[in-house]
């Protein structure tokens, strides 16, 4: 005979987690849900980190072989980006493993600005690489280097110094500007070669730009969905780099 009256909680879809001496917390408790989401993000971040590390490895070998400083800039840029991703992955895993909710809260929320700052440094290095490339190309063709193109990353310095509404938003805006500059250069490279290999950085940097455009909106509107969309776009961008690394390795 089924019991009469309201159904117990377990039958309505909520699994109870019993804690010693406690009443039990539903499994979809907000903090626990966030930690699960954090672990999922950490896993995806881990894959993205591997993609970046692989690309860094090839860029470093290319630098060693050619001694071209352009490869060095790209290698340093992608290394810093990989370092940011590694830091984020480790913090998210630590947040998941931490038993103390205040520590978990700090780690989950602290994981945001640090990799964002590293992303700014990474994009600045990649942008500098592209700017140097333009200057070298012009010089080899007997033309004067395009000062405007070379100075765009430097022009961003005042924006960096001006404290806007906060570090997070400032970094986001700087990253948008840098991503746009890098994307325009990648598009220009692709238009001159028209190859699939040069299309992959275009896709990657376009997704990074979209991610950086979505992030400040997500923060300003406190929208969790937009934040996740920004994260998903960023990771898709890194997957394009993974495709590039695989293409380089396989030949």
């Amino acid at each position, binding site marked *: 005979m089924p019991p009469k009256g309201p159904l117990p909680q377990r039958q309505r879809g909520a699994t109870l987690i019993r804690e010693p001496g406690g009443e039990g917390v539903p499994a979809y408790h907000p903090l626990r849900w966030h930690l699960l989401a954090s672990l999922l993000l950490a896993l995806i971040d881990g894959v993205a980190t591997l993609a970046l590390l692989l690309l860094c490895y*090839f860029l470093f070998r290319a630098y060693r072989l050619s001694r*071209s400083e352009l490869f060095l800039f790209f290698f340093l840029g992608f290394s810093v980006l990989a370092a940011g991703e590694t830091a984020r992955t480790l913090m998210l895993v630590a947040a998941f493993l931490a038993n103390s909710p205040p520590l978990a809260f700090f780690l989950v929320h602290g994981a945001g600005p640090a990799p964002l700052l590293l992303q700014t440094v990474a994009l600045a290095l990649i942008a500098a690489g592209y700017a140097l490339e333009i200057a070298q190309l012009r010089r080899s*063709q*007997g033309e004067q280097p395009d000062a405007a193109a070379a100075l765009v990353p430097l022009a961003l310095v005042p924006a960096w110094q001006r404290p806007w509404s906060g570090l997070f938003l400032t970094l986001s805006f700087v990253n948008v500007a840098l991503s746009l500059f890098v994307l325009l250069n990648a598009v220009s490279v692709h238009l001159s070669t028209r190859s699939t290999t040069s299309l992959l*950085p275009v896709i990657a940097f376009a997704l990074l730009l979209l991610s950086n455009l979505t992030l400040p909106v997500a923060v300003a509107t406190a929208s969790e969905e937009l934040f996740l969309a920004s994260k998903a776009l960023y990771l898709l961008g890194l997957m394009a780099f993974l495709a590039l690394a695989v293409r*380089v390795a396989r*030949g």
Partner: protein
Amino acid sequence: MRPRRRTRLRILVDILRVLEAGDANVSRLMLEANLSYARLLKYLEELEAKGLVKRVEDGREVRYRITARGAEFLREFDRMLRLAEAFGIEL
């Protein structure tokens, strides 16, 4: 627009590419790698010192042969070319 000069690395790769197709003597290398006799000898000495090619004496004729290390160097260079193409780097 000024024609671009080959870099040292490009010249070494051009010599190795000729040898990849089979052993070659100095005359053939000069012709196919588009180098003068003096410059070719200088580059061949460098390649030999790095263990990328080896000198094979066949009677009076001296030929050059690519080593396993040289073949690996060419594969590495091809990987670098793909990266250079992706980021628009001129080599």
